[in-house]
Structures are given as structure tokens and as C-alpha cells.
């Protein structure tokens, strides 16, 4: 019998993590800083992909540019690390060209909602069959911690040294208003809910969006007096799960709490389906593109 002795952690076999099949293990350890939450969000995403039971070769991961967007580089599936903000239109091309692919977009808040905001709303409007996972760390981690479209009012970043004068997006509301079929928000601490949510989203046709709050201790945390564990404690103590809450009610905090949950989940025909029906009704399913 294998046994873990006190103080010793190694068994004889080189240990194999349950997600190793889904990971480019030859690229581990990854570049994310100690305490960065991206790894946890990414792990939940891979677990969810595995849990769907769908064929692995049909999964494609697409990322833009940023710390979070390095995700594509670590997923052991066909993976595309594109340009800043453009993961969604790239993924749209992939999905429309081959509807059999399960396309996951894994990227950051800056990537998806600042430079890529226009693409996000249009993909949601078209209901492109994508699962978009946004790691929201309230700032631009990769470039050293500048203000983002998600940075809370008055928070400090390198480009808001006096505090952020602007207000952030309520991104679930944005996704909902633009036409997404599925909208949820979790934190990386709620890893199990997050996993279940991503799995549900992956199985669902149409545009699914999951926001994951995640610590960036190095750039955001440091300037806002939050150590990595402090951020996790906030996620634990200052959140409340309200499935079905209307996205318009998620602005800022409610009774001092950040609202989490699955906010929206409706069935509606995806972009591919609508194209087939409208533009090539006679074409059938056995097509090249």
C-alpha cells in the first residue's frame, strides 16, 4: 500500500497530477506568480473540460495577451495564443469554420473588456458558440499593474496613483445585455462552483460567459494592501451566492458583499445554427466549412 509518511511527500512513482493529461507538463512550472489566482481558475477550466467527457481533440483553447492569456500555452489541446483583445474574433473564425470544435476562450479582463470589448459584445450578440472564461484581477497584471476597465473606483494602480477616478464595468450585466446565453460569476476560491459552472457552460450551445475574480498579489494586491491570502479571505467573507440574481443588481457590492452565482441561463439558437437556417437551409450537416 502506498503511504504518505509524516513529513515526506514523495511516493516511489513520479507523481502524476490528475490533470496532467490536459496540461503541457513539459512547460511546468508556469509563469504565474506565487499566489496568483490564474492557475486555480485555469485548473478549474481544465477540470471542467475533462468532466464534460467530450472528445479531447475537439477542444480548442484561444487566448489573447496578458498573464491570464498565457492559459492557452499550458493547455494540452490545440491552443492559440493570439493578439491582445482579439481572442474572440479569432475563436469566432475557428468555430464558424468548424462547428464541431468546442472553443474555450481563456483570457483576462483587460484583454476581453478594454481592448477587446467590442468583440465581446458582438460575439455575445451573435450568440457564437464559445465558452468565455474571464480572469478578472481588477488590473493589467502583465504590464505591471495599470488601471483596467474593471478596476474598482478609487483603487490604486500604477496609472491611477491617486486612486481610480473612473467606475468599472459590471461585466455580467454587459454580457447579459449584449445577448449571452449563459452568465455566471465566481471567485477562484469557489473553485468547485466555478468548475461546475464552466462544465455546464461547455455543454451549452451558444455564448457562455464566466467571470472569475482572482488575486493578482504582485501588482494589484501590493498597491491596495491586500496580500494573496487577504484577497482570498475577502472572497470567503465578503461574497454571497445568489443564483438567478438579475445582472443589473450586481453593480458594486450588495450589503457590502460581492454577488456570485449563475445569473442567466437561457436556450437560444447559436450563431452557427442561425447561419445554417438562414443562409444555407439546403446544405445539410455534411459540409466542409
Amino acid at each position, binding site marked *: *500500500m*502506498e*503511504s*504518505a*509518511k*509524516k*513529513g*515526506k*511527500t*514523495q*511516493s516511489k512513482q513520479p*507523481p502524476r*497530477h*490528475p*490533470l*496532467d493529461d490536459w*496540461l503541457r507538463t513539459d512547460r*511546468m*512550472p*508556469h509563469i*504565474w*506568480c*506565487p*499566489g*496568483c*489566482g*490564474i*492557475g*486555480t481558475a*485555469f*485548473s*478549474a477550466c481544465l*477540470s471542467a473540460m475533462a468532466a464534460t467527457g467530450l472528445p479531447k481533440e475537439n477542444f480548442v483553447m484561444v487566448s489573447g495577451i496578458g498573464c491570464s492569456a498565457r492559459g492557452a500555452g499550458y493547455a494540452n489541446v490545440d491552443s492559440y495564443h493570439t493578439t491582445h483583445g482579439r481572442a474572440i474574433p479569432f475563436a469566432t473564425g475557428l468555430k464558424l469554420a468548424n462547428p464541431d470544435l468546442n472553443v474555450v476562450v481563456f483570457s483576462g479582463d483587460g484583454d476581453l473588456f478594454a481592448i477587446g470589448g467590442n468583440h465581446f459584445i458582438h460575439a455575445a450578440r451573435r450568440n457564437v458558440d464559445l465558452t468565455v472564461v474571464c480572469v478578472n484581477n481588477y488590473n493589467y497584471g502583465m504590464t505591471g499593474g495599470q488601471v483596467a476597465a474593471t478596476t474598482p473606483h478609487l483603487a490604486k494602480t500604477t496609472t491611477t496613483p491617486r486612486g481610480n477616478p473612473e467606475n468599472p464595468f459590471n461585466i455580467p450585466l454587459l454580457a447579459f445585455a449584449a445577448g449571452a446565453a449563459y452568465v455566471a460569476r465566481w471567485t*477562484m*476560491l469557489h*473553485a*468547485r462552483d466555478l*468548475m461546475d459552472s464552466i462544465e455546464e457552460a461547455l455543454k451549452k450551445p451558444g455564448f457562455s460567459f464566466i467571470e472569475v475574480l482572482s488575486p493578482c498579489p504582485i501588482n494589484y494586491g501590493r498597491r491596495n494592501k491586500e496580500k*494573496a*491570502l487577504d484577497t*482570498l479571505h475577502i472572497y470567503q467573507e465578503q461574497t454571497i451566492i445568489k443564483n438567478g440574481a438579475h445582472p443589473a443588481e450586481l453593480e458594486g457590492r450588495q450589503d457590502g458583499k460581492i454577488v456570485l452565482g449563475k445569473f442567466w441561463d437561457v436556450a437560444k439558437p447559436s450563431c452557427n445554427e442561425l447561419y445554417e437556417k438562414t443562409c444555407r437551409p439546403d446544405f445539410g450537416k455534411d459540409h466542409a466549412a
Partner: protein
Amino acid sequence: MKLWRVPLDAGHVKVTRGIVHVIEDRCKGCGYCIEYCPTHILGFSKHYNKKGYHPPQILNPDGCVHCRYCEIICPEFAIYSVEAPKPDTQPEE
């Protein structure tokens, strides 16, 4: 099989036990697994891994309930738990 009476050792077998593995060189010492293990059986080890971090060690192996939370919270794919064979059940053959 439907039981017509609750076995005397029900409480004992119901608790799944886990064996925790650490892939030490992947660990970056964030301490999330240690902080959020529900049974508080993990702690930092004294030694350093290749990257210069203290990976977690298992302070009380028998206390692991195989909830796998350490596995899913770890940002580094550095820790996981496998279900321990049930001590009280014999192999069928």
C-alpha cells in the same frame, strides 16, 4: 444492496480517506492548500524545492478526508489526493 440494518461500523467506513501527493518542484509556496484544507493537516515543510519555495508537507496523513480541495485550489498543479484503499474492506477475490 439494500441494507436492512445499519452496520455497526457505518460511521467508520463512510469517511473516505485520501493520500495526498505533492509534486514539490511545481509548488510556489502560496499556502492556499494549507490555509483551506478543512482538516488542517497540511503545513509548510522546512526544506526548499528547486525554485526556492517551501512545499507543503502532510502533518497528519490519517486526517485526510480526500475532499480534494487542496488539489483544486492549488494554482500550480502541485498537490492532489487519491482515494486511499478502504482499510476495512477486503478485495473481492
